């Protein structure tokens, strides 16, 4: 694995092993420049922007995944190839629960595999489950801030224009089965990240901010949303610190 990875253009040792995974390229730039100390831009190739830096004096990194499981799988596979071990997706989602309002934080324990990529990896019966250590680290950091959060199963899928407020036709009807099952929210990357996490024995979790509620139609203003996203970023970066400290204690 000394070779430069095909898409992320890095090789072993070049990216810190605890990585935040936003979908949006601009959010990777934002995290890298505004939240990390001693930040260094490593790569800008396709939808992958990578920064190294430190957070609470621990080495961390951020890499955007682009939208969807296809490019997210490429990112996490290649980052794992070069030695990365802890991953937290931080992003936005659409709430499916009347109890989760725009701006609320959600920590995923598992994901409905409505995507195509994960089916190429392992039969559909296999669960897309977040690593319990990452879930615990995220919960602990969230509790410290006295922030309310939703905890549970989310839905990952591929076709934004089938299941979103911008969708064609009756999207509420399409998502009703998942809302009724207690699925908290809809997004586009977590199921494949969780699956690859279990298959490659790396630690993967997800923290999301509800940008809107698909059932009630409520939406957030851009400023309100940014405040919640900032909070999710600090929780996720803090969790990456705790996960690395936990490993050091074991050694």
């Amino acid at each position, binding site marked *: 694995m000394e070779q430069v990875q095909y898409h992320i253009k890095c090789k072993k040792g070049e990216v810190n092993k605890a990585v935040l995974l936003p979908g949006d390229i601009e959010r990777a730039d934002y995290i890298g420049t505004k939240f990390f100390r001693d930040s260094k831009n490593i790569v800008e190739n396709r939808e992958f922007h990578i920064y190294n830096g430190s957070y609470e004096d621990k080495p961390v990194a951020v890499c955007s995944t682009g939208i969807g499981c296809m490019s997210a799988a490429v990112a996490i596979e290649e980052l794992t190839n070069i030695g990365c071990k802890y991953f937290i997706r931080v992003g936005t989602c659409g709430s499916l629960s009347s109890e989760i309002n725009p701006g609320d934080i959600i920590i995923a324990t*598992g994901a409905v595999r409505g995507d195509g990529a994960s089916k190429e990896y*392992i039969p559909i019966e*296999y669960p897309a489950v977040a690593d*319990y250590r990452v879930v615990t680290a995220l919960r602990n950091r969230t509790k410290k801030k006295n922030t309310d959060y939703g905890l549970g199963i989310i839905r990952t899928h591929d076709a934004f224009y089938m299941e979103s407020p911008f969708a064609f036709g009756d999207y509420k009807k399409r998502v009703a089965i998942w809302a009724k*099952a*207690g699925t908290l929210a809809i997004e586009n990357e977590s199921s494949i990240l969780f699956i690859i996490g*279990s*298959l490659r024995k790396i630690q993967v979790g997800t923290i999301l901010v509800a940008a809107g509620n698909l059932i009630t139609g409520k939406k957030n203003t851009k400023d309100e949303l940014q405040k919640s996203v900032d909070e999710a970023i600090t929780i996720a970066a803090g969790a990456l610190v705790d996960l690395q400290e936990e490993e050091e204690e074991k050694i």
Partner: protein
Amino acid sequence: MKKMHHLQIEAGQIGKFVIMPGDPGRCHLIAEHFENPRLIAQSREYITYTGKYKGLMVSVTSTGMGCPSAAIALEELIMAGAKCLVRLGTTGALQKNINLGDIIIPTSAVRLEGTSVEYIPIEFPAVADIDVVAALIRATQEKNMKSHIGIIMSHDAFYKGSIFADPDFLKREQVWIDSNVLSVENESSALFTIGYLRKVKVGTILTAVANHLTQKVINDEEKINPIFHQMTDLCLEAFKNMKEE
């Protein structure tokens, strides 16, 4: 008060915290850990005892083998007031590093059974409640015991996926061995799925009584029973910890 159709229990006769072994023959062994255990009902493969543990009202109900009967037990226990339920049972290990007698705490399960698919499409993950998983891990750590934590597989056909199955069973299981599935059993995926849908807390604790790779097996009840006593202690401590939080 109306008796539940299969379990023959009534609301109020069971605790919020319930241990669920597969084998009805193990209920009395688990009930030995309760203060003043009382036999509540006995019907088909379902035996229920209720008692106290450190002041907490607890019950044990057997599920029988397989997801069809386990789903019935879970549904009726929930209707009778159960809020936190732990399956306690045996399993066949799929990884070389799991020894006979080792404890396994699943985070989730492969849904290779028919029951849960009647509830919700197959892409929905069968995930154990994270608070139950954390409480079970904490209980094992407090007793300085090791456990294996990860994904297990639940399936329906024992004679297609066990060391007693026809000889090419390992070929069928290779996909799960390669995907780091810890072990095979028959109930957890439906219990996790239904637990999530009904908004109750469900987890599982298992002990490996066989290893499919080494083909070793424990048949002797005298060797298995002490492990069941140990797992019962872990379960009850986990309940107590959860109650306090």
